[in-house]
């Protein structure tokens, strides 16, 4: 359940898969690794796949907001893959559902970028 990150670079986007729990203990790791990924990206677009994230807290949500900001500064698009109802609920409560492009599958998320 520790935080795990996997990055695949495609021509038009990077696909980042996150696994485990994102909380105050390890969110800084997520931030650093995504920062590094963005430094080496060909395209400014990113899919962040959170479908195997079991838990996310306010620190994790804050970091997602920061990532969204950086991607936008680079004139890129960000799409999230979310599947758990629990995590969806947290996005609803915090209003983040209106800020992020959210998809239920990788295909959907990729499709949203290329629009």
């Amino acid at each position: 359940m520790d935080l795990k990150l996997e990055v695949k670079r495609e021509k038009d986007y990077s696909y980042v898969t996150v696994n485990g729990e994102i909380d105050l203990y390890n969110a800084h790791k997520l931030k650093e690794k995504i920062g590094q990924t963005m430094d080496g990206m060909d395209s400014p677009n990113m899919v962040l796949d959170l479908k195997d994230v079991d838990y996310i807290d306010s620190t994790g949500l804050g970091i997602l907001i920061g990532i969204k900001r950086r991607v936008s500064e680079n004139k890129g698009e960000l799409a999230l893959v979310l599947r758990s109802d629990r995590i969806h609920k947290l996005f609803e409560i915090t209003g983040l559902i209106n800020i992020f492009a959210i998809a239920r599958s990788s295909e959907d998320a990729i499709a949203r970028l290329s629009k």
Partner: protein
Amino acid sequence: MNIDTKAHSLVELKIPRRPEYLRVVRLLVSGYVSRFPAPVDMVEDIKVAVSEACNCSMRDTDPACAEGRLDISCFVEDDKLCFEIRDENATSAPDSSSDEASLGLLLIRTLMEDVEVRSEQNSGVVISMKKTITSI
């Protein structure tokens, strides 16, 4: 299991005020709540809220307080599950100026009932919250 009085149901956890203990808090709280037995969604709501209350004082990185401890109490009163998170070293209510801190407080207030933040003389800051028990 019977819904019980405070004395019969009180579980107290004291941990170092450090983020590596957050997961232990979440395990304890899930175990405590699922015992009633509570619906999964209620267990998850409470887990999030208590974990965010711990975040409030763990996020504050004042080095003078870095060695402090956090007390988490869980008990039943009337038909409610009650949780109190006490930071004995804190002198002021949690700061809500950052994105993270305000999201955390918003989650607590939305997911729980009767949320209160109290500064108590000589015993720090307490965040207390309740949730009406709905059995499965």
